[in-house]
C-alpha cells in the first residue's frame, strides 16, 4: 500500500457528555477515492470538521506527506490544500455563479479592480469541465439544489485542492448530474487528487470509490479496498448487525377510496388525477423539478389550486391552506426538514406538538404540559427517537432522528392521509429501515400514505402503486408488480408514457 497523502492517527474528540470520536485512524491516498462510511452519528461529520479545521481534536495526530501538522483554523486546512464540499450548501443566492465561485478570491487587475472578464472566463471553464450548461452570470437563486451543488464543486476545483472532501454530494443531484460528477471525480483522481467521499448510497461507493473506511459509534471499524467488500459486509460493519431484507413490505387489504384528485392544475402541475385508498401506499417517482413536491404542496394547500377538484371521503373540499389540510386529515412531511419541516432552535417536544397544539389547550389557554409530554414520550418511544431528552434542541439530533421528529409531528395531528416527501433523504441505513417499519405500521393501522422519493428501490420496495411525474404531468402509473426501474426511469425522463 502506498504511503497516505494525509494521515489522521488516534483522533479523539469529546463533546460535553459524548465521546464523538474515539481513537479514529483515517487515511487519504494520492489519486484514490476514499469512502467514509457510517451511520448518522457515527462521527463522520465530526472527523471531517477536524480535518477542515473547524473543530480542534482533543487527542491524535495529523500528518500531511509524513510531516506532522496542526490545524488551528479552517484557514490552516485550506492552506494545506483541503477543500470541503458541505452537505448544506454555502452559496450566496443573490450573487452570480461566477461571483460565488471566486468569492473572496476575485481576480483583480493592476488597479485592484475586479477583473470581471477573467472571473467569468474562468468560471465558464470550470462549468464546462463539470458539464454544466449554465451562464456563469446567472444568479445562484435561479438554480436548482442540484445545480447549486455543482457550483460548490466548481468552487473547490477553483481552489486547486489536493484533497477534496465531498459530503453527500449526490444527495440532491439528478442522474445526469451524478454522472457528470463522477466524470469529474475520475479526472481529479487521475490528476493525483485525494478524495474523501461520504455517501449513504452504497451503490455509488462501488461505482466510484477505491477504498472505504467504516466508522461506528465514533470508533474505527475497518479500512479496506472496495474490491474486497460488498454491500452486506459494509452494512454489517456500519450497523454492527446484519440487516434483514431492506424493504419489509406488508400487504394489507385495500379499502375504500379516501382521497381522490381530479384534473388538478396550477403553475407547477398539469391535469393530475389519481385516487388513494385506505391502507394504500402510493409512490410518486420523478426527477427533481418534475413537480412531485409541488403536487404534494398543492394537495396540502400551501400552493394554490387553479383548476381541479379534491375529494376526501367522497366529499369535495377546497383546501386553501395547510391549516385546512390538517383539519381534513392530511399531513405533509417536507423533503427539506431543516428549511421547512422543523424549527431547529426549538426542542423535540415543541416541534412535535406544533401542528396540533390545540388539543393540549385547557383553562385560560394554558397548555397542559403533562398531556403534551405524555404524548411526545409516546412517539419518542414508539419511533425509537434517540434524544437525551424531549427538551433537547432539534438542531443537536442526527439527521435520522430529526426526520423521525418531523414525521412524528405529522402523526400527532392524527392524519388519515400522510404525505412523506423524501422520507429517507440523508438518513443512514439503520434509521432508514426503522422509518420503513414505521411506514408499514401506519399502513397496518389504516393510514393512507403518499411517498415521494428519488430512490427507485425505495418506491418499488414500499409502494402498492407508483405514479411517475415528468414536467408537471403524470407520465406513468404502475402497479408494484408490473413496475421495473427501467420503465419508471423512461417515464421520469419523458421518453415514454404508460
Amino acid at each position, binding site marked *: 500500500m502506498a504511503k497516505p497523502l494525509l494521515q489522521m492517527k488516534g483522533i479523539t474528540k469529546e463533546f460535553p457528555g459524548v465521546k464523538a470520536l474515539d481513537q479514529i485512524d483515517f487515511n487519504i491516498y494520492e489519486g484514490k477515492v476514499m469512502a467514509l462510511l457510517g451511520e448518522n452519528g457515527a462521527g463522520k461529520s465530526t472527523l471531517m470538521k477536524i480535518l477542515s479545521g473547524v473543530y480542534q481534536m482533543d487527542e491524535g495526530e495529523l500528518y500531511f506527506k509524513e510531516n506532522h501538522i496542526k490545524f488551528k483554523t479552517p484557514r490552516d486546512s485550506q492552506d494545506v490544500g483541503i477543500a470541503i464540499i458541505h452537505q448544506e450548501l454555502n452559496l450566496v443566492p443573490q450573487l452570480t455563479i461566477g461571483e460565488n465561485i471566486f468569492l473572496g478570491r476575485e481576480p483583480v487587475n493592476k488597479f485592484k479592480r475586479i477583473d470581471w472578464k477573467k472571473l467569468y472566463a474562468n468560471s465558464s471553464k470550470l462549468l464546462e469541465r463539470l458539464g454544466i450548461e449554465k451562464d456563469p452570470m446567472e444568479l445562484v437563486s435561479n438554480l436548482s439544489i442540484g445545480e447549486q451543488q455543482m457550483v460548490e464543486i466548481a468552487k473547490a476545483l477553483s481552489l486547486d485542492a489536493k484533497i477534496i472532501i465531498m459530503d453527500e454530494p449526490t444527495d440532491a443531484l439528478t442522474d445526469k448530474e451524478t454522472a457528470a460528477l463522477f466524470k469529474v471525480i475520475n479526472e481529479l483522481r487521475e490528476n493525483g487528487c485525494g478524495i474523501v467521499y461520504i455517501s449513504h448510497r452504497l451503490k455509488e461507493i462501488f461505482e466510484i470509490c477505491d477504498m472505504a473506511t467504516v466508522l461506528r459509534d465514533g470508533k474505527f471499524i475497518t479500512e479496506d479496498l472496495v474490491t474486497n467488500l460488498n454491500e452486506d459486509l459494509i452494512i454489517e460493519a456500519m450497523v454492527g448487525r446484519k440487516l434483514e431484507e431492506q424493504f419489509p413490505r406488508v400487504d394489507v387489504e385495500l379499502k375504500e377510496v379516501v382521497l381522490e384528485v381530479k384534473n388538478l392544475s396550477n403553475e407547477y402541475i398539469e391535469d393530475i388525477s389519481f385516487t388513494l385508498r385506505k391502507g394504500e401506499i402510493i409512490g410518486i417517482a420523478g426527477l427533481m423539478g418534475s413537480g412531485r413536491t409541488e403536487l404534494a404542496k398543492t394537495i396540502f394547500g400551501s400552493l394554490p389550486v387553479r383548476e381541479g377538484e379534491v375529494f376526501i371521503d367522497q366529499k369535495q373540499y377546497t383546501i386553501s391552506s*395547510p391549516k385546512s389540510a390538517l383539519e381534513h386529515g392530511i399531513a405533509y412531511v417536507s423533503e427539506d426538514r431543516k428549511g421547512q419541516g422543523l424549527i431547529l432552535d426549538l426542542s423535540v417536544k415543541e416541534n412535535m406538538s406544533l401542528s396540533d397544539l390545540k388539543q393540549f389547550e385547557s383553562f385560560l389557554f394554558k397548555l397542559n404540559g403533562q398531556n403534551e409530554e405524555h404524548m411526545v414520550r409516546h412517539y419518542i418511544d414508539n419511533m425509537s427517537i434517540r434524544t437525551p431528552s424531549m427538551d433537547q434542541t432539534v438542531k443537536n439530533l442526527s439527521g435520522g432522528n430529526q426526520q423521525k421528529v418531523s414525521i412524528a409531528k405529522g402523526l400527532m395531528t392524527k392524519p388519515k392521509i400522510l404525505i412523506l416527501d423524501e422520507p429517507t433523504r440523508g438518513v443512514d441505513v439503520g434509521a432508514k429501515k426503522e422509518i420503513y417499519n414505521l411506514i408499514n405500521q401506519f399502513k397496518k393501522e389504516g393510514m393512507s400514505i403518499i411517498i415521494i422519493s428519488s430512490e427507485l428501490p425505495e418506491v418499488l420496495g414500499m409502494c402498492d402503486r407508483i405514479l411517475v411525474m415528468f414536467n408537471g404531468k403524470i407520465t406513468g402509473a404502475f402497479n408494484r408488480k408490473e413496475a421495473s426501474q427501467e420503465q419508471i426511469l423512461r417515464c421520469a425522463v419523458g421518453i415514454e408514457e404508460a
Partner: protein
Amino acid sequence: MKIDKNKLLKYKSVIGLLAFSIIISFVSPQFLTFSNILNVFRQTSINSIIAAGMTFVILTGGIDLSVGSVLAFAGAICASLIASGMNAFFAIAIALMVGTLAGAISGIIISRGKVQPFIATLVSMTVLRGATLVFTDGRPITLVSGENAERFSTIGNGYFLGIPVPIYITLIVFVAAYYILRQTRLGRYVYALGGNEEATKLSGISVAKIKVIVYALSGLCAALAGVIITSRLASAQPNAGSGYELDAIAAVVLGGTSLSGGMGSIFGTVTGALIIGVLNNALNILNVSSYYQMIVKGAVILIAVLLDRKK
C-alpha cells in the same frame, strides 16, 4: 459547591446586573437605599412595559419602531378624554384600545401587505407622531385638578403598601407576558415563527394572524406606558416617547433575545430594562452630565452585547 456552567450562562445578564449594582453601591452609598431602589424600579417601569411588548415582536423576527409614537398618541387621547370629563376608567380603556388597534394595523400592513417590519413601523411611527401633533395642536394637554383627574393621577403617582403603583402594573405585565410566552399556544407560535417562518406555515399555523397579534400586543403595551406617563405628569406631551423605541430594543437585546427571532425570554427583557434603569440612576447619582450619560449608555450596551455573543 458545584457550579453548573450552563445555569451560570443562562443567568449571566442577571449576574451582570447584580455585579453592576454592587459596584455602584460601593461608589455611592446613596444607591442602595430603599427609596432609591424603588425609584429605579419606577423609572424603569415605562421602558420595561414597552420592552415587554417589543419582546414579542422581536421574538418573531420583527421590530416595532412605532412604540414611542403610539405612547404619545394614546397618552394624548387619554388626557383629552379625561379633560373633557370622561370617567378615567373608560378613558384609559379607550386609550389602550387605540394603541392596540394602531399596533394591529402595523401588523396587517406587515403580514398582508408583505412590507418589512422596519418600514411598516417606521411609517406608523411617523404618521402617529404627526397625528398626535395635529390632535394636540402641538401643545401639551394638561389635566387640571378635579376628582376624576385625581383618581387618574393614582396610576402614575399613587402608592400601595408603600410601593409605587407603576411597579405593580409592570409586574402584572411581565407575569402576563411570561404566561403567554411559556404557557400558551400563542407563545409557542411566536417562537416557532421567529425560528422558521416557512416551517411554521407548513405546520398549519396562520402566520399572518400571529404577526397581527404580536404588533397589537406591542401597541397595547406602548399605550399602557403612555397612560402611566400621562398620569404621572398630569399632562400629555405631544413629543412624549421620542426615542423610547431604542431603549426598549436595547432592553430586549441586553436580555439576550436574538434580533433574528426565535430565541430569547421575557425574563431576559426585565433584566435588560433594569440594567438600563440602574445605569441611568447611577449616572444621575454620580452627577454625570447628561451629555456623557448617553455615551456611557452606548458603551455599556456595546460591552454587554459583545459579552453575550455566542462563540
